[in-house]
């Protein structure tokens, strides 16, 4: 393509239009994103048997997902779907809260406590490098630490703090949350750091000169001005955790339910209409969360 342009241009300066330049990029998203999403919506209204999908229009899949959700069963529990959403949302909120506090503190340190730009860049890269390494490896790297005979249990037993090794450290909700924080705090740090670097330092000086305490400056100047970063980071973390099935699978010992895992299991049993209906519901829930968060910012202005 480039050589063609070259020969054409040596004859006359020809400007290829923006539309053509964006075509390969747009085609990828049309073919591998928009059409698949449309198909999910379509298939969620289909029927299926053990062998194949049957094109039709029915609400069967949706109805079977919410079967029994209108009342509590004899154990006082709600249906599987609502319970799964409940636990997935709860894990999302816990992870969101921890990554927000941790990510904000780290970003604050990088943006305001490091004096030279070179040092700042180096420490920033130090925080982001693990993002480019394998998630599964980063998950299983907790096994020698948290396992039954892991380093933590060895130390606890050794110090006489516990008699028996602690069981809930690994393959539990604790290890799932820990792994999420380990993997995705970076998604908070980067946007918040980006927002903080845009804050005019004289605003902070002005606040201090006018007698604001450090907390007042933080609360009234820095946090409002980092709002965009906080929201972008929150969207990333919440959507990743809401749709996750890999981390919850590996770190939960394949024992903890999540919405993503339901979809994955149904897909592997070739129950596509059910999986598709679940995907549509998950998408709606995620969209509502994002809608709530994004009404406040224009992402494009922030790059």
């Amino acid at each position: 393509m480039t050589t063609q342009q070259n020969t054409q241009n040596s004859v006359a300066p020809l400007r290829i239009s923006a539309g053509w330049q964006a075509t390969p990029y747009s085609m990828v998203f049309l073919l591998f994103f928009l059409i698949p999403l449309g198909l999910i919506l379509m298939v969620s209204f289909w029927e299926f048997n053990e062998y194949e999908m049957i094109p039709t229009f029915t609400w069967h899949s949706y109805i079977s997902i919410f079967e029994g959700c209108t009342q509590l069963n004899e154990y006082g529990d709600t249906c599987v779907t609502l319970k799964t959403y409940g636990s997935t949302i709860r894990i999302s909120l816990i992870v969101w809260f921890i990554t927000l506090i941790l990510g904000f503190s780290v970003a604050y340190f990088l943006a305001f406590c490091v004096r030279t730009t070179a040092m700042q860049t180096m420490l920033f890269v130090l925080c982001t490098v693990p993002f480019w390494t394998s998630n599964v490896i980063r998950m299983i790297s907790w096994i020698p630490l948290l396992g039954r005979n892991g380093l933590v249990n060895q130390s606890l037993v050794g110090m006489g703090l516990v008699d028996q090794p602690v069981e809930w450290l690994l393959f539990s909700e604790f290890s799932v949350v820990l792994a999420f924080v380990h993997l995705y705090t970076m998604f908070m740090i980067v946007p918040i750091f980006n927002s903080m670097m845009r804050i005019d330092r004289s605003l902070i000086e002005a606040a201090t000169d006018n007698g604001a305490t450090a907390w007042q400056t933080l609360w009234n100047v820095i946090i409002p001005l980092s709002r965009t970063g906080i929201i972008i980071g929150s969207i990333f973390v919440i959507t990743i955790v809401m749709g996750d099935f890999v981390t919850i699978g590996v770190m939960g010992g394949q024992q903890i339910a999540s919405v993503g895992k339901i979809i994955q299991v149904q897909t592997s049993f070739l129950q596509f209409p059910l999986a598709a209906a679940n995907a549509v519901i998950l998408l709606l829930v995620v969209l509502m969360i994002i809608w709530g968060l994004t009404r406040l910012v224009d992402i494009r202005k922030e790059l």
Partner: protein
Amino acid sequence: MANQNFEPKRPAGYVGLLTVFVLFVIFLYGPMATIFILSFQGPDGGLTFPLQGVSLHWFYKLAEGLGVVDIGAALKRSLVLGLVVMSFTMVMSVLAGLAFRKKLRGGNALFYVTVASLIMPSIIVSLGIGLQFRLLDSALKWCFEYFAMTGMLDTFGTSLGLYSSALGAHLTWTLPFGLLIMFAVFNRFNPAYEEAAQDLGATHWQTFKHVVFPLIAPSVVGVGMFGFTLSWDEIARTSQAIGDVNTLPLELQGLTTTVTNPAIYALGSITTMVSFLVIGLTMLAVKLLSKRRT
């Protein structure tokens, strides 16, 4: 922390924040270091400390293969797919980035689709692509039957594959990063250089080749690194959108439940080293390219 008498250059709570930062870095790298050390576990050692001697035993075990899984083949597949995704990501992101600098019809919509793809739960994208290719399979089989192409009907398996569905799935994840990086680059780009080149009679292509591209080259290398490393580690989007073969991270995910010896750490050390190697090479390239510019 609310100390009003802090020195002008040291913000309040410096010591506390420094502690948090140091602990965070240990938290990030500590576990990784652990499995790196444990991959040199002696032949009698297990999944946890203590080390029973130091050896390359588990790397040899890994080379012999883990059960039925052909690690070498998976590694090669992931490597080649990563390189393909990398080149596609670089070319398409630069082209789209250039397009967005001009008046692009539907640009806003394309931008929103990009952001949507970035934050869309991966399982949904994966399911959608898997579904799409299965429906395509049905359609193709129907066509072969209809036109009585028995030869095709016998040999045709599935259109799901490494370089069809999996490649597409990876691109929906790498391209948004590529485009956002290009946005960040062009937002800070000074158009005076281009205007100067054009005033001096350069064609659009010459301007791009001799002025714009050398200026953005370090960032393009960065986009390439995102492309490769994100593809190299990708699981969620690939999981439902790949046919009979598996990429390395997918094999690895399967192995976490079946392999109970340090060979899995050896595999972890190798894949992490590949990632570090790519990051290191990228930084070197960026440094060299930036130096040439000044």
